């Protein structure tokens, strides 16, 4: 059992598995890198709809299985006014198209292609679908935002950062 107030408990106390310990407090050992990451994150999201940013960040975090990032960005999505239903359906968005706009669907397809580069490039059809819905500068920002959440995901996964303690706005 954890000793702090358990943020994962929604009803009566139940006996859950213990919380794991992170491997490395990377930002304490590399504050210069944290500063650069925060600067990059702010630059990348500039000009994009905050709700779209969170949909992209949740989906990439699901693919990369970054527990801390799923926790953070699901909560940030809710705080930005996103619906619970649209967050829940994200992991099956291709079969839930009527939950999303065509623009969001194009962004989600691009998110998947840019997140999993090892399976082979970014297909023309995926790129062109995004280019049909985003004007050029906005598309460049979308690519940057997908790139940045992939970076945060990798810190989270490599360091086994612990989910469950995030409150929206705490890093603002």
């Amino acid at each position, binding site marked *: 059992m954890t000793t702090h107030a358990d943020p994962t408990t929604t009803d009566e106390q139940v006996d859950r598995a213990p919380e794991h310990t992170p491997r490395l407090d*990377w930002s304490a050992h590399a504050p210069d890198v944290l500063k*650069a990451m925060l600067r990059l994150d702010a630059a990348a999201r500039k000009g994009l709809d905050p709700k779209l940013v969170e949909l992209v960040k949740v989906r990439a975090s699901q693919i990369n299985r970054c527990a801390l990032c799923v926790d953070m960005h699901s909560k940030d999505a809710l705080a930005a006014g996103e619906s619970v239903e649209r967050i829940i359906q994200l992991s099956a968005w291709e079969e839930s198209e009527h939950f999303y706009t065509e623009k969001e669907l194009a962004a989600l397809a691009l998110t998947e292609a840019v997140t999993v*580069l*090892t399976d082979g490039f970014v297909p023309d059809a995926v790129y062109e679908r995004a280019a049909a819905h985003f004007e*050029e500068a906005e598309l*460049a920002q979308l690519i*940057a935002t997908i790139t940045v959440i992939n970076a945060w995901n990798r*810190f989270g*996964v490599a360091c086994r950062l612990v989910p469950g303690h995030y409150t929206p706005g705490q890093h603002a």
Partner: protein
Amino acid sequence: MSRTNLLDREVGPAMSALSAAAKRGLGDPALAELVVIRASQLNHCAFCLDMHLTIAREHGVSERQLDLLSAWEEAGDVYDERERAALALTEAVTVPTGGTSRAFGSGGFVPDAVYERAARHFDAPRLAHLLALIIAINSWNRVMVARRIPPGGYTP
């Protein structure tokens, strides 16, 4: 259709700052290039491979180490234990979804064995910066591949 070559004027310098901080903290330019090239191979980034093969040669990385990099696990003593630990971590962090290498005994994430092997060769500040370097090149790989930036644009 051709793809955009736009990169926001604040995004590019921020990415450069990330790479610079990572390299400075790792403090091993030759090893940094091996890591960066291996990640770029996994992510199929032609621009990044072209650029970093050039830089690696400038830093004196041997042709043999560059030639055998995509098969480093089978290359015997071409790479020392520290380099091998860094390359295993590079693969695991680049492909957290699991997949293309023996580094992924557990099918994804970053396996304990891979992390612990790296932690034996790099103290915490260097390990944090090595991770940052792997993550920074993954970021460059993404913005270059997504926009299909051709190789050859880099000049030393």
